[in-house]
């Protein structure tokens, strides 16, 4: 076989799963990040402690073990089926990275200069207006580079779903290797290249994000 193009061609069917898992879990993790990040800043003690627990549990344990929990342990323990392995992959990756990103959301909001909030008060804004018009737009600028960074990590994290029998790029790579053992080095190089090409737009975006972040932040 003509190595590179042939191998590439055999891995392409995995792109659908890799990309769809990335997109869905990224969106889900952003959602979790904002919900959990804001809850951790809430005045409600219960809300704060509860989200604190979520963040520490998901940050503090391994993603692959979480995946196995959702696929194999929870259905037996609680008798609930969490849906297809695709949605389980999205839920696990989303919850895991959502935990990390919620810390980014929280710290960015806290990093907006206190004078900004005081100026908003002096203009008689409500707490909600203060957050929506003044704090949040500035915090988001600070979040962007970190969000891009974690999204790149998430892309690489999606490779774990090959272990819960989803047919992603790595899954096809493994299949290919098992029938062409001597090609292993080449196969895995092509797999790496595919991940890198997928990450490239994100890498470029994160550079741009840093510039955006520098622009509009308090002096």
């Amino acid at each position, binding site marked *: 076989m003509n190595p590179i193009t042939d191998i590439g061609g055999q891995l392409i069917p995995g792109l659908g799963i890799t990309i769809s898992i990335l997109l869905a879990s990224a969106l889900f993790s952003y959602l979790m990040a904002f919900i959990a990040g804001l809850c951790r800043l809430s005045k409600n003690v219960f809300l704060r402690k509860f989200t604190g627990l979520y963040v520490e549990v998901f940050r503090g344990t391994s993603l692959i073990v979480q995946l196995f929990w959702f696929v194999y342990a929870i259905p037996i323990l609680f008798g609930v089926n969490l849906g297809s392995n695709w949605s389980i992959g999205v839920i696990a990756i989303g919850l895991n990275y959502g935990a990390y990103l919620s810390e980014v959301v929280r710290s960015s909001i806290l990093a907006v200069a206190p004078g*900004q909030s005081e*100026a908003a008060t002096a203009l008689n*804004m409500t707490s909600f207006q203060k957050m929506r018009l003044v704090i949040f737009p*500035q915090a988001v600028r600070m979040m962007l580079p970190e969000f891009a960074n974690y999204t790149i990590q998430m892309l690489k994290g999606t490779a774990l779903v090959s272990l819960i029998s989803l047919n992603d790029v790595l899954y096809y790579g493994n299949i290919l290797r098992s029938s062409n053992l001597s090609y292993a080095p080449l196969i895995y190089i092509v797999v790496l290249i595919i991940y890198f090409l997928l990450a490239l737009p994100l890498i470029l975006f994160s550079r741009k994000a840093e510039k955006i972040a520098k622009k*509009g932040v*308090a*002096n």
Partner: protein
Amino acid sequence: MTEPIVQYKKVHKAFDDVKVLKGIDLDIYPSEKVAIIGPSGSGKTTIIRMLMTLEEPTSGDIIVDGTNLWKMEKKGELVRANEKHLRSVRGDIGMVFQHFNLFPHMTILENCMTAPIHVKGEDKKEVEERSIEMLGRVGLGDKMNNYPSQLSGGQKQRVAMARALVMRPKIMLFDEVTSALDPELVGEVLEVIRDIAKNDDMAMVLVTHEMDFALDIADKVLFLDEGVIEEQGSAQEVINDSQNKRLREFLSRFRN
């Protein structure tokens, strides 16, 4: 005799164990210009921050236009004010800060327009016209579409004043507004304040280190020392005539 628009009654403020203000009694009348002077750490800034609801008094009352600012009535009892009450009382108060606190993600014009539109629900077109007029008045008509980071300190402070003025406050608070500026930029900011003081009939409270300026525009000067109002009276009485030893000592550091 007009009623005071703001009254402080036996106001105390402590940060943890540090007593910053020890019983402030003060009346501010509509359109009165009040300057507060005193050594740093004497509690000057805290006095106006409490009025802007940025600090809560430890005890005592602040009455704004007949309404208790930090306390509200609930089932016939006075309880701690909630946000809604604070908002309803502080609507006529505006403030300019030492460090400007412009919103960096908005243009100069947007900085001025945001609050009247969102907070007061005013017509956008009308607010825009008023903002442009106000920016012209502080000499920044040509910078409307710039961002704060593109301005000098003096320009930023003038924008901050326009932003506060567009809200049409009855009381304006100035917290050491020239202290963070390079010396050559102080003049342009004082000029704008002087213009406001001469032409607008709002009450103004200035915390300041600019003695000559205070003497020039203030109807009333307070000398604050260690959390107590040591002297108060007309600028002439306090700055030129007072025999208070602490005040003379303080003033001598400004006059070489």
